[in-house]
C-alpha cells in the first residue's frame, strides 16, 4: 500500500545575498513526504538541511534570503509566494517544527502552559480558557511529562533539557499537524535522553499519523528512525533511497565516506582496530564551489568527467527501486 503524499518539494533553490555575492544555500532540492512516514535529511553543517526546513515553513529571512525558484506543495497547495496571512494559518497548525536548542527556543518569562496555550489560542480560537488549559495538560501527558497538572504552571528553567524538548514537541503537536519538521531535535541531549525522545516521536507518529522530516547529522539516528533518507552536500541532494537500501548499498562516495567515518562497535576481532577511514579535506565554501561535482576534491573515485567537462552530476536512478544518486562514478 502506498501512502498519501502530503508534501512535495520540487527543484527548490534558496539564495542568500551577501557582501561577497549571492550564494545558493539550497540548490535544486527534490523530495516527497508521505503521511505516517519519516524522511531523514542528513548532511554536515552548512549543507543546507536547515535552510530547506525553513523554506518549507516560510521562515527564510527576507532580505537577505529568498526562495529563488522551485515549488513547495502542501496537500496540493503551493507554499511559495503564498499570502503571509494564509501561511500563518498553516505554520504551527498544519506544519509544525521543533528546533535543535530546547534551551533557547522556549520563552523564559512565560510558563510552559502559557506557551502551549498560545499556539492553541491562535489556531483554535473557539476554545475557552478552561478547555485550552485542559488541552495543554493533555499535551504534556501525551509527551510523557510526569504530573502534568503541576508542571503546566512551571517555567522553562525549572525543567531539564530532555523535559524542555518534550515541551517543544508538545507545542508542535498541540494542533495535530500533518507534518512535523524536527531540526536536530536530539543533538543537544545526552544519549539516554535522545533514545527517550526518538522513541516518543515514533510512538506519537503512530498515534497521530503525521509525516516527519527529521534533520540530523547522526547516521545512527537516521538508521533507527527513518523510512527514507536524503543525503545533502553543498545545498544539493547527492543520494536518496529508502533507509535499508541506503545503508546496505550506498552508491555515492560521500554517503559511503560518512558511514565509514563513524567508529563501529562490532569489533569482535579483539584489540586495536585499524585507523578510521576519513573523508579528506573539508566541505568547500559556497562562495567558491568547484566546477562540476561539488565533492570532487574529496572523492576517492574522481575522474576527468567529474571536473566539469560534462557539467554537474544530477540525481539519476540507480540500482534498486526509488534509489537515486548524483554521481558519475557510483560505487557498485
Amino acid at each position, binding site marked *: 500500500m502506498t501512502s498519501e503524499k502530503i508534501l512535495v518539494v520540487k527543484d527548490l533553490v534558496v539564495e542568500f545575498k551577501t557582501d561577497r555575492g549571492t550564494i545558493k544555500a539550497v540548490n535544486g532540492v527534490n523530495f516527497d513526504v508521505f503521511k505516517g512516514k519519516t524522511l531523514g535529511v542528513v548532511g*554536515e*553543517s552548512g549543507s543546507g538541511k536547515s535552510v530547506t526546513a525553513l523554506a518549507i515553513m516560510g521562515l527564510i529571512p527576507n532580505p537577505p534570503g529568498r526562495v529563488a525558484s522551485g515549488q513547495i506543495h502542501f496537500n496540493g497547495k503551493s507554499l511559495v509566494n503564498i499570502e503571509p496571512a494564509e501561511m500563518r494559518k498553516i505554520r504551527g497548525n498544519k506544519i509544525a517544527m521543533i528546533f535543535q536548542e530546547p534551551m533557547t527556543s522556549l520563552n523564559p518569562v512565560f510558563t510552559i502552559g502559557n506557551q502551549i496555550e498560545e499556539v492553541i489560542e491562535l489556531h483554535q480560537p473557539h476554545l475557552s480558557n478552561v478547555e485550552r488549559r485542559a488541552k495543554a495538560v493533555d499535551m504534556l501527558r501525551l509527551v510523557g511529562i510526569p504530573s502534568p497538572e503541576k508542571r503546566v504552571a512551571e517555567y522553562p528553567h525549572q525543567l*531539564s*533539557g*530532555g*523535559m524542555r524538548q518534550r515541551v517543544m514537541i508538545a507545542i508542535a503537536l498541540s494542533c495535530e499537524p500533518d507534518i512535523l519538521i524536527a531540526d536536530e531535535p536530539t543533538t543537544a541531549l*545526552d*544519549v*539516554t*535522553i*535522545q*533514545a*527517550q525522545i*526518538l*522513541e516518543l516521536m515514533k510512538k506519537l507518529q503512530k498515534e497521530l499519523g503525521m509525516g516527519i522530516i527529521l534533520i540530523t*547529522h*547522526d*547516521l*545512527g*539516528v*537516521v*538508521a*533507527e*528512525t527513518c523510512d527514507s533518507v536524503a543525503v545533502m552536500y553543498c545545498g544539493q541532494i547527492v543520494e536518496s533511497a529508502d*533507509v*535499508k537500501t541506503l*545503508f*546496505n548499498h550506498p552508491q555515492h562516495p560521500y554517503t559511503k*565516506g*560518512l*558511514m*565509514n*567515518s*563513524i*567508529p*563501529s*562497535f562490532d*569489533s569482535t576481532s*579483539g*584489540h586495536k*582496530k585499524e*585507523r*578510521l*577511514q*576519513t*573523508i*579528506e579535506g*573539508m*566541505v568547500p565554501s559556497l562562495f567558491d564551489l568547484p566546477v562540476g561535482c561539488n565533492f570532487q576534491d574529496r572523492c576517492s573515485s574522481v575522474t576527468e568527467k567529474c571536473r566539469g567537462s560534462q557539467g554537474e552530476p544530477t540525481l539519476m536512478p540507480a540500482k534498486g527501486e526509488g534509489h537515486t544518486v548524483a554521481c558519475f562514478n557510483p560505487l557498485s
Partner: protein
Amino acid sequence: MSEYLLEVKNLCKTFPIKGGLFGREVGAVNAVNNVSFKIKKGETLGLVGESGCGKTTLGRSILRLIEPTSGEILFNGKNIVNYSAAEMRAVRRKMQIIFQDPYASLNPRMTIGDILAEPMEIHGLHSEKTARRNRLLELLNQVQLPADALNKYPHEFSGGQRQRICIARALAVEPEFIVCDEPVSALDVSVQAQVVNLLMDLQKDLGLTFLFIAHDLKVVEYISNRVAVMYLGNMVEVAESSELYGHSKHPYTKALFSAIPHASTEGRAGRIILEGDIPSPMNPPPGCHFNPRCWNATDKCRESFPPLTNQSETHQYRCYNPIN
C-alpha cells in the same frame, strides 16, 4: 618509579551553593566524589558520562585549573595537590589540556604563530629566533597544517583546523600527559574522524598519555585502552574498552551502550531505554545514585551506597546487582 604516570586517589570536588541575601552557604554539590584511578604511561583512559556527571570537573581538577577539595594527585609519583603556583607552572609544562570548543578557546586577536609561541615563551623554551620558528613549523607539520598558517588569524580556519591548532598549542611545550576534554564533539563526523586519527598518530609518535573525556561512547571506545564511566560524580565502572562493551557489569553502562543509535538497519534486540532524567547532583538520591532509573534496583540499593567491587584486576564496578 612506578609504571603509572598519573595516579588519582580519592579526589573530591565540592562546590558551595550560595543563597539568600548575604550569599550564605546553603548547600553543596559533590561534583566529583571520591574518584580514584591510575593511568599508565602511553595509555589512553576514556571518561564517559552524561552532562553534569562531573567529567569536565574531574579533568580540570587534575590540572588544578579547578582546586580539588580533597584527595591526592600523583604525577610521576609526586603529589601535586599542595604545590605552589610556581611549582605548579613547572608541572603544567608536562600536563596540558585541549578544550571542547575550538571557537572559544583561541584568542581571535592573536595570529596562529603567536598562539603557538605563547606557551613556549611562558616556559622559556626555544627562545632563540630561528629555533623558535623551526619549532613552530614542526608543530604545524605535526598537526598537518600548512606553514603559511603562522601569520593567519583563527577566524580564517574551520572548526577542524582550529582544533588542530589547539592540539599544536598543547604539544608546544612537549607534554607527557594531555587531558582531551570533548575534543571532537563540536566537529562534523567526517572531520571528527580526521582529528581522532591525528590524536592517535601523535600518541604513537610522541609517546603521549591521554585522559580522553567525551560523551560519545563510540569515539571513546575506539580511542581508549580503558574506559571509566561516571554517574553523578562517582565512577561507577572502569574496564578495558573491549571488555566494557561486551561484558559491562553496571546497569548504567549497559543502558548507555544500548542507547547509542547504530548506523545499520539490522534490528537490535533488547534495547534499554532509561526512564527519567539524571537526578540533580545537589540532591542525589540516597543509596546508589542510579537506583531511581535502574530496573534491577532492590531495597539494598535504596539504602546504602555500593562499594567498588573487583571483577578482575582491570575491571571494577559499583553495583549490588551486577549484570551477568
